[in-house]
């Protein structure tokens, strides 16, 4: 019985820090986005100005203002969404229509189960299994089902296209994600997330045991292999959570609202909550794998270790929340910066750039580990340099080939050009003259 209660307690420990900040996350996204776009954003909801001459107000409050910077906006939105009339279109697949948002929510809730929040392992991670990283991959790959089923069950062609795009996108980017994580697993020698964090903090930079290197912790992002796979993982992370510039499943200017076109009220809110929670958890996962997890600084000193041992149970979760918030801000920053990719650009980026890059990175990591163990440090780094040089040369060669092709190599433009040529000989002459440009 006690075990069951403990399990419930741990589940709540997982859900609360993810579910609690969702209103704040939504507010922060709207505010930050509007600052970046030179707007003001929601800044009024929750402000109270007390009357100066009413008798109902106690004297110390008269004429006072309470400012909440619009923090209650998402609460107000939530209340509105949950009290609205629930509209379900007829001729939908009812069961799947209802289940789909819950699948999305389930994925976001369970995604962070193996992420450690502090050095104190009594509470987190909820499940300290020795396959923690694979668990993250497995659960994030289930995320496609919520979107696909929503798109399928809505009985709407735009929704269906959105769902199809979601599944294709997830499958494509999952590969690069898995391969980029494989090189991290090879470097740290474990799939356990707590082991990965400890390995990052407890070894000196690049495993070199002399003066400046022993002071800095070996965070994965600081090594070249880890840096490359960190970038790849970050891009795949954006794609997995369907955030801009990868929000093709809900592309507003093509598909109305994509997979959730037919959703309204609570069910739509569930999708939104799932998306924001997944963003938050994914940024915490990124920081756990590449930037030292619950440790604040990449510094190895006994003084800091002592502090962490004293107040680790407080400092760790705080650090994780801070890092999660920072990751979210980067998410929003990317949203404000990059335009949405076209579908073929999305596929090209996933299959022709990220996947080869992460596979090459995996090979370099493997040869670095081998050379480091057998021939020593210097040879190992030489191998890394040669490996990246080869990777760069291959990339440049393939890139040059692409530039030799015709600039507008799409069928529609060819059709336009040929039809114009057919209609007027003068334009045809100009087109012939400018062909090579």
């Amino acid at each position, binding site marked *: 019985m006690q*075990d*069951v209660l403990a399990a419930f307690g741990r589940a709540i420990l997982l859900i609360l820090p993810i579910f609690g900040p969702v209103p704040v996350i939504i507010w922060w996204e709207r505010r930050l986005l509007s600052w970046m776009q030179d707007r003001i954003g929601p800044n009024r909801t929750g402000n109270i100005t007390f009357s100066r001459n009413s008798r109902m107000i106690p004297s110390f409050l008269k004429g006072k203002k309470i400012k909440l910077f619009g923090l209650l906006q998402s609460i107000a939105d939530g209340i509105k969404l949950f009290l609205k009339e629930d509209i379900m279109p007829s001729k939908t*697949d009812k069961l*799947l229509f209802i289940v789909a948002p819950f699948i999305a929510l389930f994925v976001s809730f369970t995604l962070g189960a193996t992420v450690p929040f502090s050095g104190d392992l009594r509470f987190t991670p909820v499940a300290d*299994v*020795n*396959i923690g990283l*694979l*668990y993250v*991959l*497995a659960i994030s*790959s*289930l995320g*496609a*089902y919520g979107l*696909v*089923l929503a798109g*399928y069950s809505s009985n709407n062609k735009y929704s*269906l296209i959105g*769902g*199809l795009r979601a*599944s*294709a996108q*997830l*499958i494509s980017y*999952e590969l690069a994600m898995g391969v980029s994580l494989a090189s991290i697993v090879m470097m740290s020698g474990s*799939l356990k997330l707590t082991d990965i964090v400890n390995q990052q903090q407890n070894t000196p930079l690049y495993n070199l045991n002399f003066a400046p290197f022993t002071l800095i912790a070996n965070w994965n992002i600081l090594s070249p292999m880890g840096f490359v796979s960190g970038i790849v993982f970050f891009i795949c992370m954006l794609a997995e959570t369907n955030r801009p510039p990868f929000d093709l499943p809900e592309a507003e200017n093509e598909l109305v609202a994509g997979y959730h076109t037919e959703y309204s009220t609570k069910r739509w809110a569930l999708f939104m909550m799932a998306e924001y929670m997944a963003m938050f958890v994914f940024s915490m996962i990124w920081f756990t794998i590449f930037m030292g997890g619950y440790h604040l600084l990449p510094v190895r000193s006994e003084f800091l270790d002592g502090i962490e041992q004293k107040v680790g149970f407080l400092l760790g979760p705080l650090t994780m929340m801070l890092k999660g918030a920072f990751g979210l801000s980067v998410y929003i920053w990317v949203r404000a910066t990059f335009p949405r990719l076209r579908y073929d650009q999305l596929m090209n980026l996933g299959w022709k750039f990220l996947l080869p890059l992460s596979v090459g990175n995996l090979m370099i990591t493997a040869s670095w580990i081998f050379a480091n163990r057998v021939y020593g440090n210097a040879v190992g780094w030489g191998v890394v340099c040669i490996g990246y040089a080869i990777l760069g040369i291959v990339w440049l060669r393939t890139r040059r080939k692409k530039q030799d092709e015709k600039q507008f190599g799409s069928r529609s433009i060819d059709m336009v050009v040929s039809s114009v040529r057919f209609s007027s000989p003068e334009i045809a002459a100009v087109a012939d003259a400018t062909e090579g440009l």
Partner: protein
Amino acid sequence: MPVKLTLEMVIFAALAGAAALAAVGVVAFRNATRSALCLVFNFFVLGFLYFSLQVEMLGITQVVVYTGAIMVLFIFVIMLLNLGSSHLLAEKFDGKKPVGIFFGIALAVLLSSQIVPMFARTESKPLVYPLGDSKVVGQTLFTSYVFPFEAVSFLLLVGIVGSILLAKRRMS
């Protein structure tokens, strides 16, 4: 001898029952998407069955490969084909059914010949390899089973290249 009922056994039984129900659902539903979803659920619960047997590595591989990748592709293809109304899919009675029943019974006998003796015995043998540990799985795969492992990977590669070749030929 009465079997003592533990919490693990209850959980295992519930998961196994859910998996069996989902497996029945795969063949019982007329709607192709529903069948595929039942298969998804079946694979997902199978992963949890592995977890309850303390072979986490196998369970998570099950979820990653089957639930997360292969079944997403299945559903993608089913939606892309747009199979239409289900009465078109209803098959007529022909020689396949009795043959299928025969093979089904044969498979059941084969499987139960392995399982039933295990039930008859009171104590079960401990695992030879602790398969929950990813290190052990990797070590066995890359030492004692390295040839079959590489052979299977080569076979899969040939399959991929062949399918692309066939698709390209049909296009041009």
